[in-house]
C-alpha cells in the first residue's frame, strides 16, 4: 500500500472566480437570455399590431419625448458608476465597492423616479386600444426590471455595509453590475419603439 498513485491536485486553485469562469455569471446570462427574448417578442407584437391598422398611433398623440429622453440620458450616465462598481468588486476593494455601489443605487432610484413621470406622458392608457396596451406593457415590463435591479442593488449594498463579507459577495456585486447593463441596454430598443416608431410614420 505504499505505492504512489497519480492524482490531480486542485487544492491550490482559487475558491471563487469572476466573469465567465463563475457559476453566477452563467446563471445571470441565462436570465438575460430569457428576459431578452421576452422583450424581443413584445417588440414583435408591437410591430404586428402596427401592421393591422392604417394609422399609427391610432387616434392618440405619440408619447411626449421629454421624460423618456431624460430617463435615457440618466440611464446611460449611470453606466459609469456601474462600471466602477464592477471594477472595484473585481479588485476586491471594499471601500471603492461601497462607494460606487451606493452611487449606482442612487442612479437606479433616480431612474425609477423619472420612469414614474414617463408613465404620465404616454398620451394613452392601457385600455385605450391595442396600441395603448402594448405601449404600457413594454414600459411596464421594463420598469419591473428596474425595480428588481433597485432591490438587488440595495440588498448587495446593505451586505457590503453591514457584512458578513467574503469573496463571493464581490462576485455578487460584479454580476449585479453585469445584469444592470442588460437593464440599460434593453431599454434602448424599447425607447426607440415607444418614442420614435410612432413618429417615423
Amino acid at each position, binding site marked *: 500500500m505504499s505505492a504512489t498513485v497519480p492524482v490531480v491536485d*486542485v487544492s491550490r486553485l482559487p475558491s471563487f472566480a469572476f466573469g465567465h469562469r463563475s457559476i453566477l455569471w*452563467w446563471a445571470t446570462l441565462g436570465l438575460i437570455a430569457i428576459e431578452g427574448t421576452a422583450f424581443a*417578442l413584445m417588440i414583435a*407584437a408591437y410591430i404586428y399590431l402596427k401592421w393591422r391598422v392604417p394609422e399609427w398611433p391610432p387616434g392618440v398623440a405619440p408619447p411626449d419625448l421629454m421624460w423618456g429622453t431624460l430617463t435615457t440620458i440618466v440611464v446611460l450616465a449611470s453606466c459609469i458608476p456601474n462600471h466602477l462598481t464592477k471594477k472595484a468588486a473585481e479588485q476586491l476593494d471594499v471601500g471603492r465597492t461601497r462607494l460606487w455601489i451606493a452611487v449606482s443605487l442612487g442612479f437606479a432610484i433616480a431612474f425609477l423616479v423619472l420612469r414614474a413621470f414617463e408613465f404620465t406622458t404616454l398620451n394613452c392608457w392601457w385600455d385605450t386600444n*391595442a396600441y395603448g396596451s402594448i405601449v404600457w406593457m413594454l414600459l411596464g415590463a421594463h420598469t419591473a426590471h428596474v425595480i428588481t435591479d433597485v432591490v438587488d442593488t440595495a440588498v448587495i449594498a446593505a451586505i457590503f455595509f453591514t457584512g*458578513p463579507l467574503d469573496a*463571493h459577495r464581490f462576485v455578487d456585486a460584479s454580476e449585479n453590475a453585469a445584469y444592470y447593463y442588460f437593464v440599460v441596454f434593453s431599454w434602448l430598443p424599447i425607447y426607440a419603439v415607444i418614442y420614435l416608431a410612432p413618429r417615423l410614420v
Partner: protein
Amino acid sequence: MSRAPVIELPLTDEMLSRQSRELARTWAPARGIIGFFSEVDHKRIGMRFILTALAFFVLGGVLAALMRLQLAFPENTLIGPDLYNQLFTMHGTTMMFLFAVPVMEGLGLYFTPLLVGARTIALPRLAAFGYWIFLAGGVFLYVSFLLNIGPDNGWFSYVPLAGPEFGPGKRADTWAQLITFTEVASLVGAIVTIVTIFKYRRPGMTLDRVPMFAWAELVTSFMIIFAMPAVMLASTTLILDRLVGTHFFNQAEGGDPILYQHLFWFFGHPEVYLIFLPAQGLMSTLIQAFSSRPIVGYVWLVTALVATAFMGFGLWVHHMFTVGLPQNGSSFFTAASMMIAIPSGVQIFCWIATMWTGRVRLEPPMLFALGYFVIFIIGGMTGIMVASVPVDLQLHDTYFVVAHLHYVLIGGAVFPLFGALYYWFPKMTGRMPNRRLGMISFWLLFIGFNLTFFPMHQLGMIGMPRRVYTYLPGLGWETLNLAATAGAITMAIGALTLTVNAVYALRRGEAAAANPWQASTLEWSTSSPPPPHNFSPERVIASRDPLWDDPPGQPIVVGVRSDKREVLVTRLLDAEPDHRYHSPEPSIWPFVTAMATTFMLIWSIFSPWALVWGSIPPAIAMIFWFWPRGRSIDDETHPPEKGRPQLEAATGPA
C-alpha cells in the same frame, strides 16, 4: 496548459475510504420536517420531480380514460358537454405541462450530475424552488378543477373563446396562471441544467465526451430559454385582457386574436421538442447500453439534436394552416416541417447502425426503445402528411390529428421514458425490477397503444372531429371508437403492471449491483443508489465511454474539500479544473419563496393589485434566501482585504 498538473501521491485505500465517509457526512440530506422542505440534494429534488410528474401522468390518464368511456358508444350520457370540455383541456394541459416537461426535467436533475461526474447540480436552491413552484401549480390546477373552475378552452386556450367576451368566470384565468407556474419551474430547471453541464464536468470530460442524454438535456434547456417567454407573453396578455381591460386580442380596438395564436405556437411547437429531445437522448443511452457497443455517429447525433432545436423554432405556423394566412408563408412552413425529417432520420439510422453492429440484449428497457421505432416512425409519417397544406385543411381538427400527436408524443417520448425509468430504476432505488413483469407491461402498453390510437387515423379520415363529447349512431364510427376504448383499458392495465413491478421491486427486489446492465457512463461507476456526494474517488475521464474504455488507474482528483459542500468548477470546453466552489447549503427559503409566489399568482387572478402588494413577500423571502448567514464558513477567502494571493489566482488568465 493545465493549472492542476498530474502528480504522484502515496494514497492508500484507507485514506480514500476515510475521505468517502467524511464526504457522506458533509453531503448528508437535511433531517426532519424543516430539512424536508430545505432539501438541495439533486437526487432527491430530481426524484420528487419524477414522482410528482408520474402522479400527474396518472391523473391525466384517468381523465383520458373517462373521455374514452364516454366515447365508447354513440349518444352516451356518462359525461356532459361542459365536463367533457374541462376533461380534454385538463388532460392536454396536465400531460404537456405537468407530466412530460417536468418528468424530463426531473430525470435531468437526477442524472445530469451523475452523467458528467459531479457532486451536485449548480444552483441547487434554484432547482428546489423550481420543484415547489411546479408542485404548487399542479395542485392549484386540480383544486380549481374540483371547484368547477378547471380550464375548458383546450390546452392552448385560444381567444376569443378564452377572452373576456366568451370566457366568463375564472376558468381561462386558471389556465393562464398555471402556465406561469410551470414556465417558471421549467426556466429555472433549464438554467440549472445548462450551468451544471457547462461548468461541473469531471476533469477530462471535454465537450465531445459528454454523454448523449446530457447533450439532449443541454439542447432542450436552451430551447426552453427561447421558447417559454412566448407562452409567458401569451398567457400574460390573455390574463391582462381579461382582468384589466387591455385590448391585445380585441379586434374592435385594433387587437388581433391571430396574434395570440402566433405567440402560443411560437412556444407550442418548440414545446413538443422540449418533450421529444430529452427522449432522443434516452434512446441513444438505451440503444448504446443494450447493443453493448459505443453509439454510432456520436457527432451526427449531437448535430441532429442541435439542428432539430433550431428548426423547431421555424415550424409554428403549421399549426395555423386553417387560419387563412398568405399561401407563400404556408409553403415555407410546409417545407420547414418536412425538413425536420432529416435530423430525425439521421438519428434513426445511427441507432439502427449501432444495433446492427452491436450485440443486442432484449431486456425490457430495450423493448421500449424498439417500440419507439414502430410508433414514432408511424407518427413521423402522418406528420409529413399533415405538414402539407391541402391535406391539413382536410384533416385539421379531426381525430387524425389526435392519432398523429399521440403517435409522436407517446412513441417519441413516453416509450423511451418508460424504458429509461426501467433502466435507471436499479440506480435510483438499489433494487432490480422483475424482468417478466417488465416484458408483460411493455406488450400491454404497446398493443393497447396501437389499439387505442391507430383506429383514430381512420376515424379522422371519415370525418370525426376532435373535442366532441358524443356522436350520432349510423356514422360508421361505433366500432372504431369501441376499439379505441378497449385499447385505452389495455394501456391502463399496462401502466398498472409497471406500478406493481416498481412496488414489488422496492419491497422484494434483488439488490442491484453498481452496474447491472454493464453500461458505459459514469452514473454506473458509483453504488446503487449513489451516496449523497455521488462519487468517491473521482477519477479523471479519458474517453467517451469511461466504464468501457478508460485505462485502469486514471488519476484521482484530490484537493476538493470534503469537510464542506465544495465542488470543482471546470472550464467550458475542455473541462480543465478552474476553481473550487462552495455549493449552497440546504435552506428553507426557496420553499418559503415558492409559497409566497404561489400566493401572489393566485391572488392576481382576482386583482391586479396582487402584483404590487403580493410581490413584497416573495421579495422578502428571496432576500433571506440570499443573505449570507452568520460567520462565513469560507474562511479561506475571509477577510478578502488580505486575500491578495487569491486575488491573483482568481483574476488570472482563464
